[in-house]
């Protein structure tokens, strides 16, 4: 087994295990305890934990700082970086710094538009797009060069991730764009939250037909539905999200105090199904503001214990 990086996620995936990643959103303040509190629930339960980068365009503690806090707790951070806020100079600088501090897994994203957050008046950088960011990190690592061409002393070795949304439009482009991310150098992919299993199966079939599952590891994104209200919100208010009516109905038909339980049950069934879908290398569990439930969910979904590699 030849490893390109020190990433635990890479080790787990290359060893052929069904990987599990989690997510922690940094706080809207400078208290490291706020990170530790959320992250503590995930220690030992996931192979890597995504640390989001000012998600929904709200100012939060920086992803690299929160990543370091998580790392100090024994978690493997998946350092997220969006193209919205930094130009390529700042991005490369942050990548060097992150690697210097022991981060070795990162996720390259476009980022939510500033109009969604609390600084809609901010400049919207996008010097690079997410695919160009992947290319840049790949070049830093494989060629040992900055994008400007100069040599890097001790090039960063990152296990490079990218996101994919199987449910955005136009559907026929979704796998083609995934292929571009893979061609750009993405080692692994984490998808947007999946609720429409049939559409996800169709997507994976197209990806497998293109042989993409042999060039990258695809982790299926899942988010537990806590209530009927959340299901309806996800179905109607979140761009690029596809929650079929029967899923909303299923959660809504449970009594209010049992809806969360039903959401977890549905999620566990999804994970069970995903294990059987060709090309799915693991799951990415985004239990937003529900981190304390992660151990219970992963236990129920038979994802524990995590492999030691």
């Amino acid at each position: 087994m030849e490893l390109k990086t020190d990433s635990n996620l890479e080790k787990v995936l290359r060893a052929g295990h069904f990987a599990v990643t989690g997510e922690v959103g940094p706080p809207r303040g400078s208290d490291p305890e706020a990170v530790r509190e959320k992250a503590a629930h995930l220690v030992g339960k996931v192979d890597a934990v995504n640390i989001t980068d000012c998600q929904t365009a709200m100012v939060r503690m920086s992803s690299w700082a929160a990543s370091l806090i998580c790392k100090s707790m024994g978690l493997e951070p998946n350092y997220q970086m969006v193209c919205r806020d930094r130009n390529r100079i700042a991005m490369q600088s942050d990548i060097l710094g992150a690697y210097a501090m022991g981060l070795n897994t990162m996720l390259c994203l476009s980022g939510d538009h500033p109009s969604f957050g609390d600084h809609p008046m901010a400049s919207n950088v996008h010097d690079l797009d997410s695919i160009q960011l992947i290319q840049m990190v790949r070049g830093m690592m494989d060629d040992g060069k900055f994008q400007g061409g100069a040599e890097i002393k001790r090039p960063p070795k990152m296990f490079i991730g990218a996101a994919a949304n199987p449910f955005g439009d136009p559907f026929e482009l979704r796998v083609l764009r995934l292929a571009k991310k893979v061609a750009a150098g993405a080692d692994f992919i984490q998808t947007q939250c999946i609720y429409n299993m049939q559409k996800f199966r169709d997507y994976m079939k197209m990806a497998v037909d293109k042989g993409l599952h042999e060039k990258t590891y695809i982790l299926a994104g899942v988010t537990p539905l806590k209530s009927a209200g959340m299901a309806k919100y996800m179905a109607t208010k979140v761009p690029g999200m596809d929650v079929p009516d029967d899923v909303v109905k299923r959660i809504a038909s449970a009594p209010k105090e049992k809806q969360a339980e039903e959401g977890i049950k549905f999620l566990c069934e999804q994970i069970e199904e995903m294990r059987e879908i060709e090309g799915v290398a693991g799951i990415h569990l985004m239990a937003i503001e529900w981190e304390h439930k992660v151990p219970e969910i992963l236990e129920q979904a038979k994802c524990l214990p995590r492999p030691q590699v």
Partner: protein
Amino acid sequence: MITAERKPIEEIMEYVKPYKKILLLGCNECVTVCYAGGRKEVGILASALSMAFLKQGQKVEIDELTLERQCDPEYVEELARTIQQYDAVCSMACGCGVQTIAGRYKDKPVYPMVNTKFMGASERQGVWAERCQGCGDCVLAFTGGICPVARCSKRIFNGPCGGSSGGKCEIDPNVDCAWQLIWDRLKALGRTDLYERIMPAKDWRAARDGGPRKIVREDLLA
């Protein structure tokens, strides 16, 4: 063309109130076509200002004039003999026109009467939309004639992002997803192969990021 919208009258009043005699100066080019600062709009603003001043018990003398092009020294020179009689020039041209006046008549205050918006095209009567950001290195040949720099909210070169829904952009259901338009065009042209190429990181030097830009045509220099 360059599009513009007239500033609110309250803002204009703030600029103008110290003066007794002003020249309200229109432009016969882009701002005429987009109904922001041509001869007709000069007339409308002159009346509105006169009335607003009258209401405040103030009197201001307003002369109206519309130049062929305010961004051209040849036409701006026409003001040389008359400009001294005015306390200030209120330009209804785009920012290029305002600055040409300011550059030529260095001791004369000049105020913008419009907000210059973007390089755009008319979609239908009364509607203009952004089409070009003047990035200095046109990619339309590869994107089916639809510009990702001007028309994608994230100026993504390898789109669409995950927020494209039903052909619309995630930021606003009234905004078309540029990459949906690009894809539709590439399909219609039988050139979907163009999509599969990764468009490399852009060299923004050709755009504004390289500093203020200038074109010098040696063959035309006098």
